[in-house]
């Protein structure tokens, strides 16, 4: 077993988990697969670049500010791309999200140019594990920070009252308004949370892979695969799916081919669709007949 590859695969996996979990949060809230989720990763990374490299803040406050800014971006996204179309056909909203992803991509190019950029590492240097593997500290930092953030969001949804209110809104919007929940507010909160979680991922990823404005596209494809593999709509499923995608990518890239990483992921996806279409975790909620 190649330990070095394992660690970097898990680290990438956690980044994908933050994208796919963000995707699932929005899916559960409004029943739409958000094909602009990968752009949240890209845009969050660029915002982090702005705070860190252009405004010269240390990386940790830069990450926090980028996350807050992404919360605002998520709310703006919801009010422009989703809310006006909430009663329209689903495909109209999917197309609108795709349009928004172009706006993000070109917007990032206009603001920050098309030359790839990077940000500081949270932890510099490398560590030697078990006397053999040389692992970048940033990978360890990604694993630790992402794990904490994912757990935090999960507990927020499952264990707090505001989380239950958001779940109630996601499950039955009409009823939610009948118990006095301001539905717009509750949905906006979900979008903000989703964009923050995914956006921080961009800032964590940037020191390892340079940011460029088109990276959202492949990220969307991988996150979508992760969501399907994990079980559509399941939050733990999205996390496990993300981790799997990261690992498949790392090992597939090392032992098979780096050019065909995405193809390998999709081969696994097809296998899942053939033999376990409900994904690793089926859906938790069943409709009673």
């Amino acid at each position, binding site marked *: 077993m190649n330990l070095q590859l394992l660690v970097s695969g898990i680290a990438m996996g956690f980044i994908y988990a933050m994208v796919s979990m963000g995707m699932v949060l929005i899916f559960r809230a409004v029943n739409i697969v958000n094909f602009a989720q990968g752009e949240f990763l890209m845009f969050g990374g660029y915002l982090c670049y702005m705070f860190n490299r252009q405004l010269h803040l240390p990386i940790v406050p830069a990450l926090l500010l980028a996350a807050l800014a992404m919360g605002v971006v998520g709310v703006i996204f919801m009010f422009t791309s989703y809310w006006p179309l909430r009663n329209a056909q689903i495909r109209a909203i999917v197309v609108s999200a795709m349009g928004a992803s172009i706006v993000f991509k070109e917007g990032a190019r206009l603001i920050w140019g098309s030359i790839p950029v990077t940000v500081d590492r949270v932890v510099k240097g490398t560590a030697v594990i078990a006397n053999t593997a040389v692992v970048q500290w940033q990978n360890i930092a990604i694993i630790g920070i992402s794990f904490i953030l994912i757990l935090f969001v999960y507990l927020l949804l499952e264990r707090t009252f*505001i989380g239950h209110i958001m*779940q109630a809104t996601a499950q039955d919007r009409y009823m939610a308004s*009948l*118990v006095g929940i*301001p539905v717009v*507010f509750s949905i906006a909160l979900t979008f903000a949370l989703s964009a923050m979680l995914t956006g921080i991922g961009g800032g964590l990823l940037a020191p390892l892979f340079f940011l460029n404005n088109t990276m959202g596209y492949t990220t969307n494809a991988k996150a979508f695969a992760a969501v399907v593999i994990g079980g559509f709509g399941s939050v733990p499923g999205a996390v496990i799916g993300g981790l799997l995608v990261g690992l498949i990518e790392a090992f597939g890239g090392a032992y098979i081919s780096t050019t065909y990483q995405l193809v390998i992921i999709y081969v696994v996806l097809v296998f899942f669709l053939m033999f376990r279409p409900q994904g690793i975790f089926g859906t938790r909620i069943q409709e*009673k007949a």
Partner: protein
Amino acid sequence: MLRVRNLVASYGYNQVLHGIDLDVGQDEIVTLIGSNGAGKTTLLNSISGHVKISGEIYYQDVNIAGKSPHAIARLGLLQVPEGRHVFPGLTVEENLAVGTVVNRGMRIRKGDLSQDLDFVYQIFPRLKERRKQLAWSLSGGEQQMLAIARALMGHPKLLLLDEPSMGLAPLIVEEVFERIVEINRLGTPVLLVEQNATMALRVSKRAYILERGRVKFSGDSKEVAQDERVREAYLGVIRR
């Protein structure tokens, strides 16, 4: 308490309610009867702010027409909709807790709800046994009890019930109606929409008969129950 005046409601070009006048007084149970498609649900949804309307709806002398649904709910007008609408992925107790948003607002922690929970568990003891169960897995009758109990958690000033007996076994219907009377006796006025006219007329003080979006007949429930046309059309009594 509630005064509806000249209420007109439409879905697109399809006008469904054509000038409804209706009152619910303090402490009353008022029944609304009508055949399928008469506009009963539309009337309740108009009151709770879910349908575009013209006309006036006075609640404690304030016109609430045009207010947003959650704002109307927060005034204490709580609707238990047709088909129950429990939150399927939340447990019984989580469903009940969400019912308190209406009078306590959105908040991070739910706080101490034991008094309210004790109150509704006393009315619906069966919910207490099921309190950790996910709502989708409850039986139809239990879901109906949960839907009513959730509304009670919000301390309703007026309860709008849409076909609480739908799909329930006769014994459970009996039980649900007993609870409705009990809730009313504790001081909450109720506007009750029902297909089960016999039951509804028995427990209510006054009644309205809705036909194709118009009030055809209204009055004391006892008188309504005696009316020939009503007996024939809604109580299944054949005229000799």
